[in-house]
């Protein structure tokens, strides 16, 4: 008979052995992953931090899905500015599970949002991904043509991917009072006009987020039964909160809920893993050393550290690491947060 239930547990189960007695860089066994990932078609989406996963997949020569590749006529800098190569499709940042659910419904259930073309001057923006065309489109017809193409590519991605990596970023969002459509940015930040009667603030709660994410997993598996998932939570704090709470308190609430949902989904569904990028950056062992001086953005060293855990158990035999990839050549001092619409909230406030 065991003396107590912890007696046979491995080192990773004990703080003293797994953390206290090790240097932060020697912490191991955080993520098992899919060992055959190098042979799988991997697609990414989510909050800002998800950008690094795609870049690192490319860097290591893994079969990363780029369904909306940049036209070769653009320089790397131009392609990046137009939101190419940031995620597997050009959907920009998908901060909330509600946005992801809407996208899935647009693709598979004919969801037709009412208020999704916003104006700024004489330019038109796709309000569901306003950051991908920084100067907007020339007309509403152009927005519609691009969205048709985009949805076709997203559909193909969901139908053919092996692994979908999704990084949850926020619980807070702005929604249409007409049909509930959730937007990645508040109206008026990049484009559009904020009208209190047309837009409402929402802070998604655990049950809604769990329901949204479960729905997405189910919907994708209807068309692609073998699809696997990796969920992560962005360690990047909120740039701003629209709640009455202090932004630090609001951040803790959001990240706690997202972390709990991700963990429960991993427990409740087969072939859904939780990758602890959040813990690697925010956990005690690193003493928040991976944050840049603003204590929000993550330094490149932190990103690299996270990715070593991601790839630790993956057999990379046969993968052809790229030595001159766009990602590698970029000056990435800011850890890639150039594509973070949420950060614009902060800029507006300054």
């Amino acid at each position, binding site marked *: 008979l065991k003396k107590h239930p912890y007696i046979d547990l491995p080192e990773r189960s004990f703080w003293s052995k797994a953390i206290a007695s090790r240097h932060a860089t020697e912490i191991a066994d955080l993520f098992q992953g899919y060992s055959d990932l190098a042979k799988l078609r991997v697609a990414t989406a989510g909050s800002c931090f998800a950008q690094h996963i795609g870049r690192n997949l490319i860097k290591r020569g893994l079969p990363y899905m780029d369904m909306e590749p940049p036209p070769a006529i*653009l*320089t790397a800098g131009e392609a990046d500015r137009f939101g190419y190569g940031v995620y597997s499709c050009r959907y920009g940042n998908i901060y909330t599970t509600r946005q992801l659910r809407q996208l899935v419904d647009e693709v598979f259930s004919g969801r037709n949002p009412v208020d999704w073309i916003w104006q700024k001057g004489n330019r038109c923006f796709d309000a569901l991904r306003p950051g991908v065309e920084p100067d907007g489109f020339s007309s509403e017809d152009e927005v519609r043509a*691009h969205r048709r*193409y985009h949805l076709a590519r997203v559909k193909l991605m969901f139908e053919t991917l092996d692994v979908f990596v999704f990084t949850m970023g926020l619980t807070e969002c702005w929604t249409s009072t007409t049909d509930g459509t959730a937007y990645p940015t508040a109206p008026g930040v990049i484009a559009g006009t904020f009208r209190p009667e047309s837009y409402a603030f929402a802070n998604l709660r655990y049950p809604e987020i769990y329901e949204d994410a479960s729905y997405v997993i189910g919907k994708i598996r209807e068309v692609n039964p073998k699809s696997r998932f990796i969920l992560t939570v962005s360690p990047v704090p909120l740039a701003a909160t629209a709640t009455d709470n202090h932004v630090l308190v609001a951040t803790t609430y959001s990240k706690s809920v997202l972390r709990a949902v991700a963990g429960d989904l991993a427990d409740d569904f087969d072939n859904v893993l939780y990758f602890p990028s959040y813990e690697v950056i925010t956990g005690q062992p690193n003493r928040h050393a991976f944050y840049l001086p603003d204590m929000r953005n993550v330094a490149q060293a932190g990103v690299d550290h996270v990715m070593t855990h991601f790839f630790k158990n993956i057999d990379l035999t046969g993968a052809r690491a790229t030595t001159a990839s766009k990602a590698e050549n970029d000056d990435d001092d800011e850890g890639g947060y150039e594509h973070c619409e949420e950060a614009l909230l902060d800029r507006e406030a300054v």
Partner: protein
Amino acid sequence: VKSICIFGDSHVGSLRRAWRRHGAHLQELASIDFFSSHGAYWGRFEHSVSDDVIRIHSNSVKGRSPLELDIRRNYDLIVFSSPLHSSPTFRHRIWHKYCLPEQSEEHPKHHVMSYASGEAWITRRLQSRFSFMQDIKSSVPQFVVFEPPKPLFRVPTRYQLSRSLVVAADELHRGVVFKWLHQSGIDAITAPEFTHQDGLTLENYSTATEGDPHHGSFLYSIAMLEKLLGVQPKPAIAV
């Protein structure tokens, strides 16, 4: 008699030949010096403006000697041909994989590229010419830009591209340049309406040389020279 200098890419050569062979009725109106060169020289080049001349140096055509050109600043009118030459845009291999939004239904297998992406590409390629034109405009009495023919009627077949895609790419290119010229207060001698239809140059106004995808015929060149000299150009009845 007005003194004019027309310089730039190979379209200037077409104008010169037309002027010499068919331009007798215009030669009493102006004295024109033509400086024609390979269009690729104008992709990357350096220039400087001194008291008397605009000096241009380009070494951007492989296997050819550098272009060294001095243009006197005291011509009554200086005409530049190059920025509106859209052939490098509409003939680019990118159009075999990508299309613009308006062609997306006609080309369901193509990726869709935004007009803004295309404009960024064209603007980058033309940047040195834009700076050059700014400098010239402020250095000479009168400066205008010459518009070469729209894509010739044979271009879609020759490059296995749809007509709509060729026209859209051409319009994208010319649109970027015209917008810039307008903002900079620079005029252009534009292609007469009767020389083209539905975005392509008509056969009469396209060079007869079968393998040539972009030069105008004598008729086109004469019509443009007439327009330049204020003579009302008329459509040709027969070739």
